[in-house]
């Protein structure tokens, strides 16, 4: 077949990529491969294949092995790293899990916020830079050790935080659980709102196979002493355009993060740092309840929950409580009480986000929404498309960076720090 030359100028950014993201995310229930504990050995280890250069693990390194499945194409419940092939310029990563999509680490932005200046925002600023050679993820070149800690960034891997063998387990009743790396067989995942309550002689897996007391150290050598108590709805990799995905966080979240970032935690640092694991003041609770957007304080506690600014429920280990709050239908929308706490994940996501410092919202700009919409280079709004607001992102990218949430704040919205502090 005759064809013209191969060279064509590529000029078109994709203005409709949001369709792909939203439409692919209409399902994504929990996955039963790990089932709360160690998966089938043959799913990760290549036991007796002497012909391969690596006879044991599937990937070149630990994280690459994880991404063999979790980095697959097409948004799905357990996918957390969109392949390069699915992320052309202007198109965001596809997954909208509470932890975020590692694909954001590959989304760099360059823009001119004002005449004569250029801002370069490297992708590596967007999250935890796991090392996964097969998939092009490399160590953080700026933070060579964990911020607020000393862990070698070149060692950061999925199993730095997750126990790839999932030994930590939750036993006892949902109301009064106990944890250990032995004690009873794991019968199912313990991560979900619909996870079973372990009967006597049974256990369920720790939340997301995260390490905890008794777990061996993973890559990077850190030993966790805190339990990450939480529950997530069974369908969690989804757009939050209509209802939020509410992860119910309980006792221990910030202490758990402080394992690698001790100087970021008020309990383990003498440095000035934002409080974590501290109860919200009555003023902050009042702000959270009433805050609907910049200058709009007409909200009510019963409908004030915002998954972009989540909080830790009391200091609870009660999984009956946590599981009841883990919903994605908007039925648990009540904001915090003074017994609830601010935590690391009130502002950050665990994997990566569309914003610097892996925060849940953009903190590198005066306004996160303008002219009533999320900004973007391709916005029909002459204001929202301005470079200082769009910051190199398409509307789709901005929207997905907010997990698909409809822009429901003030028409000119400032930082979501104000959800608690209401300084705007």
């Amino acid at each position, binding site marked *: *077949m005759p*064809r*013209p030359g*191969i060279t*064509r100028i590529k*000029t*078109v950014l*994709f203005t*409709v*990529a*949001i*369709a*792909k993201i*939203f*439409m*692919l995310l*209409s*399902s994504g*229930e*929990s*996955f*039963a*491969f790990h089932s709360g504990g160690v998966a*089938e050995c*043959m*799913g*990760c*280890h*290549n*036991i*007796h*294949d002497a*012909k*391969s*250069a690596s006879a044991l693990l*599937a*990937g070149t390194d630990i994280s*690459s092995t994880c991404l*063999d*499945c979790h980095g697959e*194409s*097409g948004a*799905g*419940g357990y996918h957390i790293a969109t*392949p*390069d*092939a*699915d*992320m*052309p310029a202007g*198109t965001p990563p596809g997954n909208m899990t509470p932890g975020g999509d590692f694909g954001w680490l590959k989304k760099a932005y360059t823009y001119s916020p004002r005449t004569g200046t250029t801002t370069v925002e490297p992708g590596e600023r967007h999250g935890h830079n796991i090392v996964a*050679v*097969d*998939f*092009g993820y490399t160590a953080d070149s700026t933070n060579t050790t964990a911020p607020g800690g000393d862990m070698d960034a070149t060692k950061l891997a999925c199993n730095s935080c997750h126990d790839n063998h999932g030994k930590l387990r939750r036993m006892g009743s949902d109301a009064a659980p106990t944890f250990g790396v032995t004690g009873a067989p794991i019968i*199912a995942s313990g991560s*979900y709102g*619909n996870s*079973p309550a372990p009967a006597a002689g049974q256990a369920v897996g720790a939340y997301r196979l995260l390490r905890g007391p008794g777990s061996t150290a993973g890559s990077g050598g850190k030993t966790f002493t805190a339990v990450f108590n939480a529950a997530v709805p*069974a369908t969690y990799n989804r757009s939050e355009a209509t209802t939020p995905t509410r992860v119910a966080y309980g006792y221990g979240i910030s202490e758990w993060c402080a394992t690698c970032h001790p100087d970021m935690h008020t309990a383990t640092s003498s440095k000035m740092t934002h409080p974590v694991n501290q109860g919200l003041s009555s003023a902050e609770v009042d702000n959270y309840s009433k805050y609907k957007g910049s200058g709009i304080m007409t909200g009510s506690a019963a409908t004030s929950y915002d998954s972009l600014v989540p909080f830790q429920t009391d200091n609870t280990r009660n999984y009956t409580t946590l599981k009841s709050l883990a919903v994605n239908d908007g039925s648990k929308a009540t904001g915090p009480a003074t017994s609830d706490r601010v935590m690391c994940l009130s502002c950050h996501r665990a994997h990566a986000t569309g914003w610097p410092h892996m925060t849940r919202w953009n903190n590198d700009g005066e306004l996160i929404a303008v002219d009533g919409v999320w900004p973007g280079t391709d916005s029909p709004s002459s204001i929202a498309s301005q470079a200082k607001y769009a910051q190199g992102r398409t509307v789709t990218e901005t929207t997905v960076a907010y997990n698909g949430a409809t822009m429901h704040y003030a028409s000119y919205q400032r930082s979501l720090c104000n959800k608690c502090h209401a300084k705007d």
Partner: protein
Amino acid sequence: MKSTLQKITMALPAALLMVSVSAPAANAEIKASYLYSLSDFYGLVPYSWTRVVIDNWHAETYVLFQNNVKVFNGNGMEVYEFGDDIDVGIIYDVAIDEKTNIFLLTNNKQKYSIVRCNYRGEPKETIEIKGLPDELKGFIPFRMVYRKGNFYLASLSHMQIAVVDRNGNCLASYDIKPMLELSEEEKKKGSEMDMVGFNVDNDGNMLFTIPAIFKVFRLTPDRKLSSFGQPGSIPGKFGIVSGVAEDNRGNYLVVDKLKSVVMVFDKDYTFITEFGHRGVNPDNFIVPDEVAIDKGDKIYVTQTRNRGVSVFRLAYE
């Protein structure tokens, strides 16, 4: 611009080498020889995990990566590209028919459709999908295969398949998940098992893999579902299965990402041989993902780590 001699040298390096890479099992009668990797004038095109589709009528190969479609000739050299410069939305997949029409599975303004393009990749017609049954409400196809005048559309995450004609009319649909007969334990877990590989064989049977349960499935048009596969490391057993395709003799090619091999099974699911294996040599794989085969028995295997698309030739002895 490099000289013609240089181009030929780059395009056909393995034609000179023709290294036999298989280690056939006792009953194996198939060998795979590495030929080359899909290339342009600058060398190997460094794809990672991409979509590869064969145009058997014109001996060309289409590769979709980041909304850009590149066309390679029968020697694995790039001859054309399009996609970035047309306003059709996000391109999910590509198919080609016998009349040189190029079909793109697209999502434009939150609406998916099939866009027919001419041989230059210029959009000429949008085919809307019509008549889907209620069970496919919310159906979002991510893969498209053209066979004998019909399009087979698959939603991997929903595990649903729709067969539509050239006008977009739904001819048949399949909701796979209820057909899997999950155990009560799996149902209690609320498990989701998504399809990874999807293809259609020459008889119109739909092929797909579900890596979570280490199996390859074949679904006949009259809804008979069969499967094969067991977890394990020895030849013929599965680690993480991915792409699947039928060769020209009715055998099934199955990609295993964990073992980094392509396995060959006969039509009765009996293991014949496997080749590749993890490594950095040209005839090795690093996490292969998809497989396609042309009528000349050349198979195309996608990989990660920027290793592009490797092309082998199967020899039947």
